[in-house]
């Protein structure tokens, strides 16, 4: 079979453009997890005592927990002692002072991924925090942002430079007791991004974090904390890729958003972790806890996600709508092909009066992939005159693909108006024929129809990323029809 295997490999190579490995020296600790490892991570990052204490509490809680099994996912057992919990590219003891000191190989890596880190070459109006395995490599435009009072830096810097903010808000949205993966992340997270937008400031640029897993046998556990103080506004985007490997790698992230009175956060994700090959070998296990806490009156959060990668996706970006008139939005496109599995959706917890939420979920399942939408809309007795509208559509491509919908609606206030609509269908032959009659090839016709299906979500993405997301979708579905 070697000939055939190499053909398959070629095909996959073509599809997943980010599958290369950067050959760079790294400081990687041996696999295994215990309190000493956590102390070691904390020491490597030179953390204050409160951080170590918090990590240990989280770890001690984690050991009492079991993996959640309610998702519709078929996962090989994960050996948590066979993973390295810290890996950083070699660099000077103090870390690079400027971009000139960053290892050229790293810069080249990001260049190849389409994320140039030199400010003169960078996308205009987008500041980037580049996280490579367990650490942040560099953050662009820090000075320009500082002029506006915006803090945008690696999490590990924030712990040292703004300990009072970190201590106040860390775990306030996603406590370490929240769930199995959140507890694990709280114990071992190594880096991530930290953002603080002061009162009344409209962040002058898009902020973006680019996550890259490179080292084998490691997990990535990043943590992002964004605080939008009263009346502020920020748009934030994350992207993720990883090399192609035969074994599965674990990614368990936590994202916490704190949104105060009149503030707004727009959080967009283009997730393109390596999905594994056509036979289901390799790929990232992606377990993510994301939650936004709309604490103040008129606060607003908008999650937009394009989930194309990962062998396993377990992810429910949520909105706690505590403030009066607060607004939560969730726009999602999830594409699964071949053997990928995704169980994703959102929670809208309406606590404040007049809070409103919108859910638009578009799932596309091809090959042998299984995909589930799982969502909760909960109206608390306090939440008068709230509204939710959920639209949840699935498109199936292929006899062996599956699409499942598990929406929960718990309504404890009569003034709420809650509406849920869902459809599942395949691309209609009539639509395909219409496009082909006008002169489009079958593949282009499928791409066009799928992109049309996802349009409501794509238009929520910042312009540059909408184009990228569309291209990503086409690549992900290559070979799905025929």
């Amino acid at each position, binding site marked *: 079979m070697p000939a055939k295997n190499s053909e398959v490999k070629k095909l996959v190579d073509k599809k997943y453009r980010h599958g290369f490995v950067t050959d760079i020296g790294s400081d990687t600790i041996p696999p295994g997890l215990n309190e000493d490892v956590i102390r070691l991570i904390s020491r490597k990052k030179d953390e204050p005592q409160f951080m170590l204490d918090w990590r240990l509490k989280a770890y001690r809680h984690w050991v009492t927990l079991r993996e959640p099994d309610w998702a519709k996912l078929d996962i090989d057992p994960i050996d948590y002692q066979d993973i390295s919990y810290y890996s950083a590219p070699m660099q000077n003891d103090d870390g690079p002072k400027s971009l000139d000191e960053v290892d050229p190989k790293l810069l080249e890596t990001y260049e190849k991924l389409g994320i140039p880190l030199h400010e003169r070459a960078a996308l205009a109006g987008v500041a980037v925090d580049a996280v490579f395995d367990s650490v942040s490599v560099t953050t662009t435009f820090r000075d320009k942002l500082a002029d506006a009072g915006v803090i945008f830096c690696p999490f590990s810097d924030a712990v040292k430079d703004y300990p009072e903010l970190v201590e106040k808000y860390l775990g306030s949205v996603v406590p370490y007791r929240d769930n199995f993966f959140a507890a694990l992340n709280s114990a071992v997270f190594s880096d991530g991004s930290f953002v603080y937008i002061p009162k009344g400031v409209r962040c002058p640029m898009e902020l973006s974090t680019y996550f890259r897993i490179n080292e084998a046998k490691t997990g990535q556990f990043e943590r992002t904390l964004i605080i939008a103080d009263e009346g502020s506004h920020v748009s934030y985007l994350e992207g993720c890729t990883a090399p192609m490997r035969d074994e599965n790698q674990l990614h368990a992230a936590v994202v916490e958003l704190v949104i105060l009175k009149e503030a707004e956060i727009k959080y967009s994700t283009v997730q393109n972790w390596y999905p594994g090959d056509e036979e289901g070998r390799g790929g990232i296990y992606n377990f993510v806890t994301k939650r936004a806490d709309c604490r103040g009156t008129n606060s607003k959060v908008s999650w937009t996600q394009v989930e194309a990668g990962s062998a396993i996706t377990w992810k429910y970006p949520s909105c706690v709508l505590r403030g009066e008139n607060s607004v939560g939005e969730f726009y999602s496109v999830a594409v699964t092909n071949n053997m990928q599995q995704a169980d994703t959706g959102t929670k809208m917890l309406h606590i404040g009066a007049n809070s409103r939420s919108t859910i638009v979920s578009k799932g596309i399942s091809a090959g042998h992939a299984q995909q589930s939408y799982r969502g909760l809309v909960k109206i608390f007795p306090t939440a008068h005159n709230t509204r939710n509208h959920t639209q949840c559509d699935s498109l199936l491509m292929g006899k062996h693909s599956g699409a499942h919908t598990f929406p929960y609606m718990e309504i404890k206030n009569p003034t709420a108006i809650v509406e849920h609509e869902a459809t599942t269908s395949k691309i209609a032959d009539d639509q395909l*024929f*219409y496009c*082909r*009659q*006008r002169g*489009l*090839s079958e593949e282009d016709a499928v791409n*066009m129809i799928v992109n049309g299906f996802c*349009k*409501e979500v794509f238009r929520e993405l910042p312009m540059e990323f909408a184009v990228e997301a569309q291209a990503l979708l086409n690549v992900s579905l290559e070979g799905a029809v025929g």
Partner: protein
Amino acid sequence: MLNIDNLHATAADTKILKGLNLSIGTGEVHAIMGPNGSGKSTLAHVLAGRDGYEVTDGSVTFLDSELLDMLPEERAWHGIFLGFQYPIEIPGVNNTYLLKAALNARQKFHGEPEIDAAQFLRVIKDKARLMQMEQSFLNRSVNEGFSGGEKKRNEIFQMAVLEPRLAILDETDSGLDIDALKIVAAGINALRSEDRSFLIVTHYQRLLDYIEPDVVHVLAGGQIIKSGDKSLALELEARGYDWVLEETSSA
């Protein structure tokens, strides 16, 4: 331009076309009329290459190429346009975007460069004016939320932009009120030219008051049973189809 020779076709194992012959010269306008279920729409769909029909015998040449061997999009690239009786809605796919992609696919097939964006916009604006379509229609999803008349106008608008060599219009007049019918007919007339042919499939003579055909055919039982000039259409309108059927069966 188009030569159909002894065409037999079935749908779901039912024989529908049973030895149809038809020849359309360059620049000619042919109308096909016939009772319900005679095979008019089947003919249109077989020519455009829709799945679900099986050609069991006969051949079709179009501009010297064997048409039946081609994929639907290849037929479109060679210059075949089908105006649908029931244009489908495609949510989220922008009308203009579809046209641009279609034009560029054809350009690529013919080894020509992509259409200049500014020029393309001028063209579609002109053609939209011709069809009295609001600008906003251009940016809406294909046929989504269009009324019956708007969908048909959109079909002729697409035809105007794509400039086919042979336009097959399948019951384009059905479901139109008289004003919409006039607009659609005016659009079709504006596109008549020496090197473009039309095959107009219709149930009623009404459309032919506005578009003067060169030849009128009667299709019944899967065959063309009578052909004539414009007066045949008027006679059919006045007398119905029965006399033609009787004439043929007694012949």
